[in-house]
């Protein structure tokens, strides 16, 4: 598992250990240098003090501290050794006067030599003494660190755990969310570092809630609206059962067929709308020629229009009018507009379908000379299941809702205006750069 806590702990402990080792090394170097300076001076002082000594007696007092391991050797002018404080140790011979560092089988030595009235006096000390002293100093600085390390690790563990608790709380509060309770996560107590996460989560929750609510509303509306055609169907079936003679039966059967057709229409429109609702996935967009759409739609509605003596045709067609979109969806859009016009235009009326384009936009237009829609109602007719009062024709109440949903997917604008002939003109504008 990729644990922030463990990572932090290891990194911090590692960094501290590294700093500690560097610190120890620095202490060691400094102590070593200091020891060199002090002991070199010490060597010289011992040698100088030996100048007036009678070497028959003890020199222990001179050498002092046993642990410093000073060794004194004195020769007369004939090169005969007259004194050697520690004959059991192998001291290097004197190569030159002053300070020197010599190597023997006993290790490295620091030697100071001087000549005085024919005597050669050499005082030496193993370098290991100095290293040992420096190491001890370094160790002393490190010990508290080493002893404290577990405590520091524990502290880091606790502090990191405490600081990560808001994240755990956040996880719990996200886990508590259900499709029924998608209220936003509280932002109190959330550390600044987690704000972007909480904001994005709340954003997502809000969008989810909207989408779910839309779905629920849609299902509730659909269930409600399906009752009307089903009620009609049930009544029509019962009337058919009750019919006592052939003419009653024929009339009841004709009504039943109409009722069935309407039910099928409503269900089909519901499915179409459900497919166009936001969040149902984006269909593939491809270039679509509006003139082709207009021709196909007018052809499909020609028979229905002719049956009602409506003059349905294409008024203006622009072969260059082209949009990027889903051909099936755009066809549904235009079919709904033309279908509405055929349904609501009185017999003997006229319906014009046209398309066009300029530099900025392309458009589809359907205008009729029917009763039109009063300006006050032009926004509401796009609502699902909105039906205008006093309509003889029983529609699904979904046609314009479908048109709006498809237009939204294509970033197109739907505009209802008065047609020059007094009816309704519906214009769908597609922006070219969209």
């Amino acid at each position, binding site marked *: 598992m990729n644990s922030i806590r463990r990572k932090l702990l290891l990194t911090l402990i590692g960094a501290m250990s590294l700093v500690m080792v560097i610190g120890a090394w620095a202490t060691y170097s400094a102590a070593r240098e200091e020891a060199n300076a002090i002991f070199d001076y010490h060597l010289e002082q011992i040698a100088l003090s030996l100048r007036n000594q009678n070497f028959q007696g003890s020199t222990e007092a001179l050498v002092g501290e046993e642990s410093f391991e000073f060794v004194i050797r004195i020769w007369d002018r004939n090169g005969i050794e007259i004194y050697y404080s520690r004959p059991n140790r192998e001291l290097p011979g004197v190569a030159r006067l002053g300070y020197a560092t010599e190597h023997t089988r006993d290790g490295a030595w620091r030697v100071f030599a001087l000549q005085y009235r024919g005597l050669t006096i050499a005082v030496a000390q193993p370098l290991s003494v100095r290293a040992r002293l420096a190491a001890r100093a370094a160790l002393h600085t490190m010990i508290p660190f080493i002893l404290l390390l577990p405590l520091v690790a524990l502290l880091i563990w606790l502090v990191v755990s405490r600081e990560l608790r808001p994240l755990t709380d956040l996880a719990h509060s996200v886990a508590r969310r259900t499709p029924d309770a998608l209220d936003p996560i509280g932002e109190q107590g959330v550390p600044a570092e987690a704000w972007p996460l909480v904001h994005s989560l709340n954003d997502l929750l809000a969008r989810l809630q909207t989408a779910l609510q839309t779905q629920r509303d849609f299902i509730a509306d659909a269930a*409600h*609206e399906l*009752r*009307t*055609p*089903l*009620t*009609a*169907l*049930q*009544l*029509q079936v*019962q*009337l058919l059962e*009750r019919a006592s003679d052939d003419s009653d039966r024929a009339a009841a059967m004709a*009504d039943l067929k*109409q*009722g069935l057709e*309407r039910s099928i229409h409503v269900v089909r429109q519901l499915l179409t709308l459900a497919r166009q609702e936001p969040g149902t996935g984006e269909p593939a967009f491809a270039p679509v020629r509006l003139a082709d759409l207009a021709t196909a739609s007018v052809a499909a509605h020609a028979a229905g229009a002719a049956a009602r003596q409506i003059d349905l045709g294409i008024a203006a067609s622009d072969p260059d009018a082209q949009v990027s979109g889903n051909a099936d969806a755009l066809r549904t859009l235009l079919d709904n507009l033309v279908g509405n016009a055929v349904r609501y235009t009185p017999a003997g009326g006229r319906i014009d379908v046209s398309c066009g384009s300029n530099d900025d936009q392309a458009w589809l237009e359907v205008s009729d000379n029917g009763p039109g829609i009063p300006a006050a109602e032009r926004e509401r007719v796009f609502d699902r299941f909105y*039906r*205008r*009062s*006093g309509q*003889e024709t*029983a529609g699904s109440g979904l046609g314009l809702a479908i048109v709006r949903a498809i237009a939204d997917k294509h970033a197109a604008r739907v505009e209802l205006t008065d047609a020059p002939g007094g009816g309704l003109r519906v214009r769908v504008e597609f922006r070219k750069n969209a």
Partner: protein
Amino acid sequence: MRLLVVEDDAMIGHSLRTGLRQDGYSVDWVRDSAAAELATATTDYDAILLDLGLPGKGGLELLAHWRKQQNPVPVLIITARDSVAERILGLDTGADDYLVKPFDLDELSARLRALLRRRSGRATPVIEIGPLSLDPASHEVRLDGSEINLSAREFGILHALMENPGAPLSRSQLEDRLYGWQEEIGSNAVEVHIHALRRKLGSDWIRNVRGVGYMVPRQP
């Protein structure tokens, strides 16, 4: 019995009118609240079937309006709104019954009969006056135990008269109860049906109150 159906959907309204006429009611059908207000202002109905989802002023508003005017007409709500809260609201606004769409035409008829029975203060569905009995549900009329065959109009007239025995109804009152707006009424249609009833039941059962109208006596 004359009913008002307030229903905006053409198919449902048409079917209701057809079905209820087959049950012997005279039915007026309106499609919005303005027409419904006009109808109740000019005609007395025995019961009203009311859809709630009307364009314009809603059904509940209409109902509240009638009740505020002290109009006691039995109102049966027929609607797609099926939640308990909506039913409670409908009944508390003054409806006498509440039927959720889709519904069965026979159930609607039964509920209507129950409403009309309650309105006339009877507990039993069958109206009995001595040896004469009339069952509004089965349209069965019996005299001394044997069944009498009546046409729908004849049954309607007898039903109206037997609802309030001893109280005469005028010819125009009977016409109102029997015929909806769009129906042609022959100038002497009521007299023709009265004549047929007398022939089938005996003239004692349908009495003419001169200058007032017709009645069924409390005691034969």
